[in-house]
């Protein structure tokens, strides 16, 4: 090999390759898991109209009489060309998920735009004033909010701000024909809940990452040289803590896309998580698969970016021994 590619590019390419492989494995696991579930789309849809004849008529119509691996390969082939296929209800999967995915992304981006800068700032503040009142207060309150299940946070927020004080609507459900202002107003409570849930994780990890760097000899050296503490934290410690901070941010961003199902249910927010629940209940496999792919892609994508950021910020990682 005479051509020498840039080490970061070749690293990124190999990570992307591994990411795609993981996607295929995830889709295989989900597909087989769904086909082992008891019950079928036909009986779920027909309910108390489900006679044996009606069920088999529907299964033949949907091609469900074929073995599951045949269906999987057919689906994989189509998905590779970007065709997510038709849902069992006959509508294209992307038409079904598309608007909901947009809603999820809007909610996730607004939350992330607030949460990421805020949590990193708070984390730095905690590290800088370690052991002081502000650190103790933030550590305790974030520990509390990380320990409470998210649906409970959601219900408390809803009870106080929507039912008792009536400041905000209890339903975030954005529907056709609502103006942007009303949509944002309706999204306040879910955003607030999500902030409470993910802030804690990111603040604590930022603080821990900076503090672990602060224990290293070169920081001691900087202090001995007489640099002010604020400068030590921001100029000396923070750049070396970017790797771990990036990975916790990535995890939380992925959570915002794939893990907000409970929040969506409580606030009646029409996001992609509800689409997946609905699909699982109906055994609508093409939709389940598409949602799983989106979620897995979010995790893999964000982690890939976090990896690249930490490697760029720490060139030693490029040349593992």
């Amino acid at each position, binding site marked *: 090999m005479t051509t020498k590619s840039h080490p970061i590019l070749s690293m990124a390419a190999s990570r992307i390759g591994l990411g795609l492989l993981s996607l295929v494995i995830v889709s295989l696991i989900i597909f087989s898991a769904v086909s082992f579930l008891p019950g079928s789309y036909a009986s779920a849809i027909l309910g108390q109209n489900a006679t044996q004849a009606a069920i088999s008529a529907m299964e033949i119509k949907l091609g469900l009489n074929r073995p599951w691996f045949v269906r999987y390969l057919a689906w994989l082939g189509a998905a590779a060309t970007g065709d997510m296929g038709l849902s069992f*209800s006959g509508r294209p999967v992307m038409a079904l998920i598309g608007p909901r995915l947009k809603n999820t992304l809007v909610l996730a981006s607004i939350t992330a735009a607030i949460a990421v800068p805020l949590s990193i700032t708070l984390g730095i503040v905690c590290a800088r004033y370690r052991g002081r009142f502000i650190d103790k207060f933030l550590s305790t309150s974030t520990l509390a909010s990380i320990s409470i299940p998210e649906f409970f946070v959601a219900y408390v927020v809803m009870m106080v701000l929507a039912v008792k004080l009536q400041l905000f609507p209890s339903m975030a459900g954005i529907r056709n024909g609502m103006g942007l202002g009303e949509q944002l107003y309706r999204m306040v409570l879910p955003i607030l809940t999500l902030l409470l849930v993910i802030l804690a994780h990111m603040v604590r990890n930022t603080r821990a990452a900076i503090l672990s760097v602060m224990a290293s000899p070169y920081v001691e050296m900087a202090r001995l040289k007489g640099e002010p503490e604020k400068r030590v934290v921001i100029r000396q410690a923070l750049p070396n803590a970017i790797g771990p901070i990036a990975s916790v941010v990535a995890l939380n961003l992925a959570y915002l896309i794939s893990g907000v199902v409970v929040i969506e249910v409580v606030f009646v927010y029409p996001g992609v998580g509800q689409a997946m629940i609905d699909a699982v209940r109906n055994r609508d496999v093409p939709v389940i698969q598409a949602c799983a792919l989106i979620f897995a892609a979010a995790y893999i994508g964000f982690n890939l970016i976090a990896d690249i950021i930490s490697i760029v910020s720490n060139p030693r990682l490029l040349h593992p021994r």
Partner: protein
Amino acid sequence: MSESDRGQMNDLAHKLRNGAISRREFLARSSALLAAGAAMTMPGMSYAQTAEPKAGGKMRLGLHNASQNDNLDPGTWSTSWTGASFNGGVYNNLVEILPDGSVAPDLAESWEQEDKAATWRFKLRKGVTFHNGKSLTPEDVRQSFLHHMKPDSTSGARAIVQQISSIDLDGSDAVVFKLADGNADLPYLMSDYHLSIFPAQEGGGIDIQSGKGTGAFLLDSFEPGIATRLKRNPNYHKNNKPYLDEVEFISIPDATARLNALLTGEVDFIQDLDIRNVPMVERSSDFTVQRVPSLRHFSFDMDTRVAPFDNPDVRLALKYALDRDDVIDKVFLGEGRKGNDNPVSSIMKYYHELPQRDYSIEKAKEHLAKAGLTNVSVDLHVADNAFAGAIDAAVLYQEHAAKAGITINVVREAADGYWENVWLKKSFAGVDWFGRAKVDWLFSTIYTSKAPWNAGWSNARFDELCEKARTEADDAKRTAYYAEAQQIIHDDGNLLTVAFVDWRNAVSNKLGYDKVGGLMPLDNMRMCERWWLKA
């Protein structure tokens, strides 16, 4: 007034409050009691005010069963969401079921039958137009039925349309249905929400894309699994109806979120109020808990082809060994009407009132002895979704039955897949029945020996009575046949009805409505055109 009269009076008042009888019926029966007795004190009664309907306003409904798979193909409808928004809002049937359970003309103005109910002629109402201005023709009706009759049909109305052998147009305003066998209930079956009338397309088939029906409302927007908005149809064929300008259906799957939406004024009506939330709604002066008696019932069903259920006395012993009052009190928190081992609901025509079967350790032992046993052990299969509270009910039943020497092993099954793997497969299992609006329909789908969901019970006399009653035009004879059939099920049948439940909704006091039908949820699916806003 004697003690028993007072008891009856209280019972009537209770029934009135629960909506089991109408006010007119209450007045008639209570004045009869009054005439027989002396003075009395009126028990506390709360009347729903039936003010004159008012025009205008928007009603918002919070329902739980929307799905992203919902679409306008009537064959796929299976929920109260699709039933009430599409069938009840945008479309009509040939006939309509009134709140009192009787059948009334809708798109059909009148109908007549001949050949022992095997030929039916429906005459269409004049001047009805679809939302796009097209007039209703017999061809629209014919195509709307053929849609469900295709050979590979997966329609929910398949069982009904299978009885039809041909549909012919008769002139410009009538349709003739020929049935393979007579069925005196055909007009009622025409009210099935799948059998909505759609506009026919050129070259056959119906237009299920455009959302243009004949109904009280125009389909304004439809986001599957999220919301459906309807706007008033100014050219509706029923006088003054609809009253509302707009109706919005909003999907709220979570019970707590539904309650909060009501309490914060996001919606005016929520469906299926959780029993634990009843006191919360009842405390408020802005909302009412509405209980509409329904066909829905919870039962434990036995397979009588398998020992020990093959012995009628063992079945009776099991029926006597259940303390229904205790279950209703503890598991359903008082929300339910006692079952009497009869699947026919008291709100149905041809309901035959039988003496209530109550918990009796002696009678249970007596029937066990007749079967030549002193004790018996059975497995009862239940899951969380067999019916709401099924596991708790089974555990209580275990306690009740133990006193009569009957051992019940409660087998907890997984909720997921319960209907595929347990129901109709295990010989004794909990079932949540939605019921059927007509006795014949109920019996011929579940209890006759050829019924598709027969759980393993057959009785020749019962089958014969159903056959005879189906084609019988004389109402008195029909009533007698069905009374005997219900007696047979009660004594010999394979089901142990725990309770009948109500449609339990929470309603804002701003909404106005008349008597509410319970054969189907949401005022027989037609609340859009029957309800109004008071303020």
